[in-house]
């Protein structure tokens, strides 16, 4: 199956004009599969960490959104233990006009602004609401442990 022009163009553009703090590199054997790393935003509990994600563009991309998952363990109310992300643009609010770059930016933004009201990891969200300080502390620790090696 030939790679759609859109994916080729997106990849080329990601390579040519990378977004600061984000990188996405396709696998040579599967150009729909990307290794992604996102720098934790400054002034966030994830600052200093480099988070690895995997991104897969499904067959009917861009009609359906890319599948994306954190590989690096992260303590975040919208990201569960398996690394799955709760983000509207990855689900109901996906539009084919969106792209890899904009999705990754959204994820980076999500790290800077956790939304415990729409949780995926219930325990994390619970704690985030009850004791935000402690939760942020745990997040920092997790970052240090998992994202800074």
């Amino acid at each position, binding site marked *: 199956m030939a790679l759609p*022009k859109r994916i080729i163009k997106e990849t080329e553009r990601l390579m040519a004009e990378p977004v600061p703090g984000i990188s996405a590199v396709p696998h040579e054997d599967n150009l729909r599969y990307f290794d992604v790393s996102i720098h934790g935003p400054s002034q966030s509990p994830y600052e200093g960490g480099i988070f690895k994600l995997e991104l897969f563009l499904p067959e009917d991309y861009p009609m359906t959104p890319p599948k994306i998952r954190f590989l690096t363990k992260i303590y975040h109310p919208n990201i569960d233990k398996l690394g799955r992300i709760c983000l509207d643009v990855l689900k109901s609010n996906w539009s084919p006009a969106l792209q890899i770059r904009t999705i990754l930016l959204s994820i980076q933004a999500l790290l800077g602004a956790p939304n415990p009201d729409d949780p995926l990891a219930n325990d994390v969200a619970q704690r985030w609401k009850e004791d935000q300080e402690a939760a942020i502390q745990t997040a920092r620790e997790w970052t240090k442990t998992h994202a800074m090696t």
Partner: protein
Amino acid sequence: MDIDVRPRKKRRFFVDDPEDVADPQVSTSSVTATSRPASATSSTREQRSSQTEVHDIQPLPSPAFDADTFRTVIGEDVGQDVVNQIQAAAHGDIERAINIYFDGSWKKSASAASSAQRPPPSKGVDKWLATSEGSSSASIAPEQRNDAGTVPTRARVHSMPNERYVGSFGVAAWMTKSGANLLAHGEAVRIERSKIAPRTKLGRGGKLVPIVGRNQKADVITRFTNSRGEELGRLPEETAAWVSSLVDQKICRFEGTCVYAPDRVRVNDTVYLQVRAYFLKTAFEASAFVKSKDDNRATGFFEEKENSEEKDLRLRQVALIKLFEEVNLNPTSTNETTAKHKKQGLLRAAEMAEQYDKEKDSKGKSGVSTPNSEEEEEGEELEEDQLDALYQKARSFDFDTPEAEPVSTFALDLRKYQKQALHWMLAKERDETSSKQQSMHPLWEEYVWPTKDANDVSLPTVEGQDKFYVNLYSGEIGLEFPVQEQNCLGGILADEMGLGKTIEIYSLIHSNRSDIDLQAAGKPVASVNHLPRLPQSSTSVEPAPCTTLVVAPMSLLAQWESEAVKCSNPGTLRTMVYYGSEKTANLQVLCSAANAASAPNVIITSYGTVLSEFGQVTAAGGDRGSNGGLFSVEFHRVILDEAHTIKNRQAKTSKACYELKAKHRWVLTGTPIVNRLEDLFSLVRFLKVEPWSNFSYWKTFITVPFESKEIARALNVVQTVLEPLVLRRTKDMKTPEGEALVPLPPKSIVVEEVELSKTEREVYDLIFTRAKRAFNESVQAGTLLKSYTTIFAQILRLRQSCCHPVLTRNKDLVADEEDAAVAAAADANGFADDMDLQDLIDRFTQDTNLAGKDQAAEKDPITTFTTHALRQIQDESGGECPLCYEEPMLNPAVTTCWHSACKDCLERLISHQTDKGEVPRCFSCRETINPRDVFEVVKHNSPSASFDTEGDMYSADGAASKPPKISLRRIHPYSPTASTSAKIAALLKHLSALPRGAKSVVFSQFTAFLDLIAPQLSKHGFQHLRFDGTMSQKVRAQVIRAFNADNASDPKAPRILLLSLRAGGVGLNLTAANHCYMMDPWWSFAVEAQAIDRVHRMGQTQDVEVVRFVTKDSIEGRMLRVQERKMAVAGSLGVGQSGAGGTEEERRKRRVEELEMLLG
């Protein structure tokens, strides 16, 4: 004598001819006049009137002479010496003897020889016998035309007495004087023509009848006078009619003897005369002159008088026939083929001509028409089917006829049928053997001069002149045996256009050269001191034995010349174009036998040149030789190309061509008969085919029967004329192996599967389920055949839905929705199905301006954006598609929030969202999208804009001057018929991919589908034409002409023809196209193949591509399988279509099987 045997001859009162004495009535009636009661006479008269139709009953064989019987019959006891005398005079024929006795001629027999009936003694027998007869035939005078044998030589005529008895006949004349003893039995009277044309004539009742409405020429009054020259009376009009012609035209002299006249006569009394007819010597001498009147053999340079001459000829024909009939002189030898209807035919032709003349006169026209007017054509037009029937014969071409290989100097390879043509042409040209036999010319009849006169008096004979010859068709009389001219050594090559007539003729030119030419070819060109003796340029016609003259329309001269080069090995054929400034050469010198080694083999000239040289020769008084032109030589061969140019025999060009001299004469034409039988005559006349080249003959056997509605007979004759003369093959002809004569360029047939769109599929599935249910139900109920029609109707719906869902819908519903669409367009706030972008921009700009005026500060940002977006669309700067990143967008489409993307992307997005049960939203602003409110952007003035393969070539000139018109068109229009369908889209895709100038035909069996295709073609800028069964013949012809027109350079010319399969499948020639699209399959492929053959047939020069659109996973696929099955069945049964063969039972079975294949 037995009264029962009387009905024999009309009005034959007197003995006139030995054979005729066999008629007993003759003698009896002559006796009645004197001795029998009046009642007998009247009964004779009755007989006469009732017998007028009986002309040619053969005389009964005469009983042998018996003296007793003789005495019994005459009722007198005559002396034995008298009986012996009479017996001798009657040659033992009793009937004749009785006649001789009663008419008293036996008494005079001894003195008869010196009587007035004999030629004047001054030109005594001895004198003309003395003239040697042997010196005659060889010394044929130079003025003799190519039909030498038919002309009596001067020498022989010279030996003829001034006049010679041909026979006598009885006539009941009437008196114009009254008195006693004016005329007595046995008194000689003179038969004279009146010199003065009387203004009045005496009616039968003795009244003066003014002559009204008859012109001078109708004057036929013939008087008889006594020896003092006093008029006594006149011949009855029916006799006078022809006697006058013969006297006027100096063919005959007549003299009479009174047989019976009452002692006292009154005006209008009947007297009986015996009239003796003599052929005048002048009639034979006149032959040469008469000849020039004959429309066929005339030198033709003075044919302006033709019409009056034709009239004279007609009168002469009739008069001669009547004369021979009256004197009962039958030809001893005549041509079998012509004998049958000859005389009657001639008479009828003459009658018709006379009527025609009268009509003309009554219309106030002069009797002389304008013989040179090119427009004037005679003859009725032929119906199409009659023409077909005519060609039938010539067309029955045998594929097994022998072939001939062209000689080695001919450079091209001939196809099989061309080699057959060569063989045929060679055979025609070499057919000289038959002329060696001295057979009589078919138009002539041989007569024996009577040796005894009516009174059984021996007539003087002339040694070597016991016979004379008459050509009733030309009115000629001759003493010389009319030799059948050599057959026409040529013919009509009437192969249809495109089969290579030119090549065939060149192969003939190469392969049948004259002997002189062949000898010359072996020798090198003569050296200077060995110069051939060139003929003096003389007034005579010189042979040009190496030269073929080709006469062609001017536009084809160059082609003939270039073909000559193509088909000849270098140096083997010398050609010369004889036209305009190039015609300085003296052809007599150039083409002479002496110059054979360098004479041109082919001279190519135009009809115009022939005509103009003809004019010069005419102006020079028929002096052919002096200007050294086309008419000064006798060519080896002359060929008329596009010979229907001379179809009008009255046209000067035609007359000019007739006068070209050549040994072999050929005409080439694809249409030997354009629309009249006379068209063919002109060709035949050019070819000099005897006897048909004689117009009088032609008229007798063809024109007259045809015009008097004996069409079958006329056509039959024409077929016989055509058959030996014409070689005609058509492009449709197939070899016995079923191959075309000329192999066609290859054709490819591709079945293209078309996938239905979702909505189309839904419609299809719905109908399919219904049909399937009906089918299953009737299968279970066992009523499949009964409900066949119902199911068949549903299958029809299915097939229609494969083409376009609208086809299956109720027409009223469709119309309602159509109205709704119009209403939507009318709504100012709504969007029409089809909007002009500029209008839309204007609309929004106006809003902006209004808003700007009212609230300058708050310009509506949405309106601003809209305007901007629309402008972007207009400027084609819409950029890349946000969905597929294609740049520029493929087939851009916009939402009502004016976000644009590729049409396909947008459609895919909408369907993706609706499939998930979501409300479709804009990919950009997440505004909800009404799937109906998506518009595609269509650029006009480029036929292939939407597929953008080569549209730029147009816009290069079009767009520069003014911005292209752009319209926004709803992808799913409210109007149901405005929407496209999968098949239409597939068709458009194919059409757009075609190279510029390529022409296509689109077949569908549903004219309603064509109705839907047409607007889509227009939308995409394809000019197209339409052909279906509802159109009149005239309109159809116009459409086909417009489509086939050669208009490659005109970008606006229509290149697509929409045809209904049934109306356009048969007969049409659409070879201008080489792409063929079959929108829907028919039950049998044969019908489709027929349609495809409209394009893939003779004349097609390019490869033909056929695409058959078949909807994927539908009944159409199954139909293809039914087609295959039918083809297999047809193949095994040898029948064309499945419906044709088998019993009702078998057909039913087959139908059920087919249904099972379709729905099972």
